[in-house]
């Protein structure tokens, strides 16, 4: 029987040696193990049936997978060095992806070209758990901006190599890709055009408007209220609202149609995405400029800088980290929102999401959604690093 002292000791042992997040990671991963690792479908649109990890893999691979995963989870639960956790979770993620490919290979019937192997809920949970562990380890190591950019590039190269090697080719999502590769790249390009184009437009309009709001306080509340209202309109409604006026412009303004303005398609999507992005840009520009130390700005005036010189040489560079933060927000937001453009014929990766949803072909949905998430993530990491780099220069 345990004495009170022993209980207290073991409790403090738990507190000292156990990583609370690691316990969560382990719980999620273990739950993932008991859910289907892959899904076997007779064809691409039927629901299909789940297959657990040990049934989907050759025996040797299943044993190796369980042992490997077990050791990663032990590392997750203990308080050990961040580098070790990082390496373990990275290796774990890589292994899960490769195992999914192996499972797809193993399960694919030789003679049945209609059968599909999809990624099961269990795999997703494993990936989620390991990604959680990875990001936690990364953020605890607090890497500098260059390290983050380097890690991102490294991850992209590794993932690109896996895709290129053909290991995952038996997977349903890649079969969906295989049958529409040209369309995929075209819509990806369109998606990027929509996201980056709207961000560029919003920056080009929003930063000057933010500067004007800063200089002329009379404009401030009016502009911010208007943009706030725009933000509250649901995106799909905003697309809809724009159809009528843009169609009218296309029909009545000479030349409008030739530059691509029409009621549906890319133009209303671009306008709506830009409108959504304006508030964060304007607000962050305003906050960045208002937040500058008054002595610095007054010194610039006192030295005899004209108002333009002051803006260009002092205020904008110093406000840049805050402005860039706004741009990061809208870039990530618009990479996601661009998906909806497909609904009004604007194209983008949303095309696959809505096609897939219409056909109940879940892997086609995934073909649109997964790259979108990856793009948003990469954009967040890249811009975050740039912000840190520019803030480094502007520190006081």
């Amino acid at each position, binding site marked *: 029987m345990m004495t009170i002292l022993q209980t207290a000791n073991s409790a403090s042992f738990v507190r000292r040696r156990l990583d609370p997040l690691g316990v969560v990671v382990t719980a999620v991963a273990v739950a993932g193990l008991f859910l289907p690792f892959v899904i076997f479908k007779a064809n691409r649109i039927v629901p299909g049936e789940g297959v657990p990890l040990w049934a989907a893999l050759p025996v040797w691979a299943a044993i190796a997978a369980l042992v490997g995963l077990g050791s990663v989870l032990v590392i997750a639960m203990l308080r050990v060095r961040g580098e070790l956790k990082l390496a373990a979770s990275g290796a774990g993620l890589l292994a899960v992806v490769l195992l999914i490919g192996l499972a797809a290979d193993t399960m694919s019937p030789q003679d049945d070209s209609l059968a599909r192997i999809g990624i099961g809920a269990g795999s997703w949970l494993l990936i989620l758990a390991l990604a959680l562990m990875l990001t936690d380890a990364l953020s605890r190591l607090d890497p500098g901006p260059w390290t983050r950019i380097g890690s991102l590039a490294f991850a992209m190269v590794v993932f690109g190599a896996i895709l290129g090697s053909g290991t995952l080719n038996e997977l349903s999502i890649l079969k969906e890709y295989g049958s529409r590769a040209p369309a995929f790249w075209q819509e990806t390009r369109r998606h990027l055009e929509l996201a980056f184009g709207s961000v560029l437009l919003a920056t080009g309009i929003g930063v000057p408007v933010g500067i004007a709001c800063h200089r002329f306080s009379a404009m401030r509340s009016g502009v911010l209220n208007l943009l706030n209202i725009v933000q509250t309109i649901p995106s799909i409604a905003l697309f809809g609202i724009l159809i009528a006026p843009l169609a009218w412009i296309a029909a009545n303004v000479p030349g409008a149609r030739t530059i691509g303005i029409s009621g549906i398609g890319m133009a209303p999507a671009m306008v709506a995405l830009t409108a959504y992005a304006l508030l964060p840009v304007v607000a962050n520009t305003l906050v960045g400029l208002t937040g500058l130390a008054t*002595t610095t700005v*007054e010194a610039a*005036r*006192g030295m*005899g800088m*004209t108002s333009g010189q002051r803006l260009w040489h*002092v205020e904008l560079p*110093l406000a840049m980290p805050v402005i860039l933060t706004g741009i990061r927000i809208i870039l990530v937001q618009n990479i996601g929102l661009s998906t909806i453009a497909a609904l009004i014929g604007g194209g983008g990766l949303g095309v696959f999401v809505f096609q897939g949803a219409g056909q109940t072909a879940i892997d086609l949905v995934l073909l649109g959604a997964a790259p979108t998430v990856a793009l948003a993530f990469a954009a967040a990491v890249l811009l975050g690093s740039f912000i840190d780099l520019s803030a480094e220069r*502007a*520190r006081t």
Partner: protein
Amino acid sequence: MIEICDVVKSFGDTRAVDEVSLMIAPHTICALVGTSGSGKTTLLRMINRLVEPTSGNIRVDGRDVMSVPAYELRRQMGYVIQGHGLFPHWTIARNIATVPSLLGWDRRTIDRRVDELLDLFQLDPATYRNRLPGELSGGQRQRVGVARALAAKPNILLMDEPFGALDPVTRGKAQEELRIIQQKFGTTIVLVTHDMDEATHLGDRIAVLDKGRLLQHGEPADIIANPATDFVRELVGTTDRAFRLLSLATLGEHVESGTADGEPLEATMTLRSAYSELLWSGRKAAPVARDGTVLGIVTLDGLGRLAARP
């Protein structure tokens, strides 16, 4: 020459500066003193138009400041802002080069000027040129702030508590540097301070402000001896005004004839320091020397007479 005529500045209901008239002669230092909130900064900033007067006018060398574009006016005056105000994203060299760059000096002249100023303020150019303000101590930043104001060799220098963050030793050095620069270039300086010692030490004239009003304007000795109001008397401090008076002159100006024993005192020493030195070493008199040549003596009695109410 800076002529301030009947200048008023109101912020809403408060009159930060209330009908102030003040003449600042060329090549002199005018110290603006007063308690916190008395309107020193506001008055100073009206000279370079960072604040525009509600009424009254200010002329610099005969020209109304409102008749030239503000940025041009400001480039002709050095300005040391309260709390340094260096540009945090620029190197020390670029900070100092601000006004010369705005005036379009060529690169080489600017570089030479920057190094010259860093030297003058005892900051090794090789070490400090490419540092950012964040990598300097508070006192070093303040000196760079003064160097930046001097960069384009202005005739007029407006300084808002330029030595506020310095320890007494560094402050003394910085004051000496300022005095030397002023004598060398004949700069007209308006110096805001709430340190009465600094004002008496550096100012050719002192202007006392209280609640926006100019209470008294005169030479330090005059202000110490004949404070115009109780407020000025309080500001000057009654307990050590004799010492303040002594700190205004140097030994060289008051040599007595005679002989005395012991270590000679330097002629550049203030009377106040000499008095302290005599008391400390227990002597009634000491020789006074300049560059090793004995000029005469100083006596405790003589100093005592000089410290008495004029």
